[in-house]
């Protein structure tokens, strides 16, 4: 499979709180991609920045031939990306990685996102909804402006609970009862987390106690994005002992019970 694509940006808008929403035309990519997978983007032509930047799919719209990402400006690459005008071509590799293993028969799933980490969970929630699976959402961020996807989820009829640092509600100790209640909702078959190692540890513990399979989408600095350079190491437990897996190719989604969340 050819994983090299030229995307045409159709929208790249400032969403406030340092976030941008980018929509691009890429029909092949849109049909091939699954929630939890990502694209590896050259943010500008030339050698500066030198490496690609990974971004998860925020929404996949094969019927429109479009993919969407939601990103936070944090450094050189994302700053350059935020300057791109509609009509610009973007060089991207994708779809890369293993997506979320959404159970087609799940009655309900739980998503737990923090900050920009909620982005891939939106694509997952949309896919869940399309197959008739219910979604419960707990979203965390510094302040209400930094919560993403809450309105979209609400428009889909998803019950969203938000917690923030500003209101003093986002501490794991305070999230614990909310998360426990959400997991205990009848039919909850799987749980997914992204954007916080602390929340991932919390989910791992609560989900394990209930026998609910839980998965996290992880981040690590990447080179190739295709499994070839071994720089994106993630420590995992296996029956033979601890080892490193590749976030780009073995992940970015891993069963939480497998990963060492340092």
């Amino acid at each position: 499979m050819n994983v090299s694509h030229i995307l045409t940006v159709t929208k790249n808008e400032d969403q406030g709180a340092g976030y941008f929403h980018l929509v691009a035309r890429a029909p092949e990519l849109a049909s091939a991609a699954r929630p939890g997978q990502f694209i590896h983007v050259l943010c500008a032509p030339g050698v500066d920045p030198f490496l690609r930047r990974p971004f998860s799919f925020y929404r996949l719209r094969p019927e429109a031939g479009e993919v969407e990402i939601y990103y936070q400006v944090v450094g050189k690459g994302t700053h350059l990306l935020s300057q791109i005008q509609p009509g610009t071509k973007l060089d991207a590799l994708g779809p890369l990685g293993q997506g979320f293993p959404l159970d087609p028969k799940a009655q309900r799933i739980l998503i737990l996102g923090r900050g920009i980490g909620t982005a891939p969970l939106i694509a997952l929630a949309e896919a869940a909804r399309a197959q008739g699976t219910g979604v419960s959402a707990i979203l965390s961020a510094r302040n209400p402006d930094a919560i993403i996807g809450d309105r979209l989820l609400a428009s889909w009829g998803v019950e969203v609970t938000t917690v923030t640092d500003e209101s003093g509600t986002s501490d794991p100790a305070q999230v614990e009862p909310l998360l426990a209640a959400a997991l205990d909702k009848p039919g909850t078959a799987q749980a997914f987390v992204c954007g916080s190692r602390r929340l991932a540890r919390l989910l791992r513990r609560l989900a394990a106690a209930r026998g609910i399979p839980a998965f996290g989408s992880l981040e690590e600095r990447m080179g190739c994005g295709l499994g070839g350079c071994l720089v994106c190491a993630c420590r995992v437990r296996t029956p033979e002992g601890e080892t490193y897996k590749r976030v780009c190719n073995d992940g970015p989604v891993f069963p939480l019970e497998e990963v060492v969340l340092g």
Partner: protein
Amino acid sequence: MKPDLSVEICGLKLKNPVMPSSGSFGLPGYEEYMDLNGLGALVVKSITLNPRLGNPPPRIAETTAGMLNAVGIQNPGVKWFIENDLPLLKRFTPPLIVSIAGTTVEEFAQATELLEKEEGIAAYEINVSCPNIEAGGRAFGMSAAATQAVVAAVRKRTRRPIFTKLTPNVTDIVEIAQAAVEAGSDGLTLINTLLGMAIDVKLRRPVLANVLGGLSGPAIKPVALRCVYQVAQAVKVPIIGTGGISSATDVLEFLLAGASAVQVGTANIVDPYAMLKIIADLEKYLAENNVASVREYIGALKTH
């Protein structure tokens, strides 16, 4: 007429002079994304006698026109390689070059012995850039004597061609090259990465968990060219040039400096299709300039 891209190096017939450098290209793995049979040769990630976990992350740092890596030769060990990877890699037509690394001379020797029992391996590349634990962790390739000891140990166990891959982190690379050739190396690959580091000012910490890492990419091309040129002046064996190659003209520069073939590393990390593009561009360049064979460039540098 179609220009001839083929080269021959230590008896290996390559349909073009471009191959991946060890550790930068998933072998096996990338057959999923492209036709590997278009490449001049296949070079695998360095294999050690025993499995190696590698370094903790972060293992990569972006630099100006390049990158630092500190993977730490993560690999599943030679037995696993033979059982799992080799059968897949044997199916491709380009000659297969297996890179061997080790932390003692004995490890190189034992890994070679195990690989010698297998078919489908065209040559070995000896990665002497790893720390020699019998010399306080100094890389083998930083000492002529240690390089010689490793090459001699492998030489004793194989008749397959050996390419010793030299590190640029030395005072005089020519001295090390000569030592490798004297010990029986049929060819040389140069260069491996340059030792470097990156610092995060906000955190006041090194970017790499390993603190130090190997610099690669376009930033190191002038150093690599210089090394190839100096060594080509001093030894008669064929050289595979590597370091910062990302275009067809880069390839020709290395051939002019004295290389007979080249390896592409970091360019693959930015674009997995880089080598296929370089090979197509090379053919186009030669055709446009009425050059019949790429071999015309090898060592053809005019210095006055």
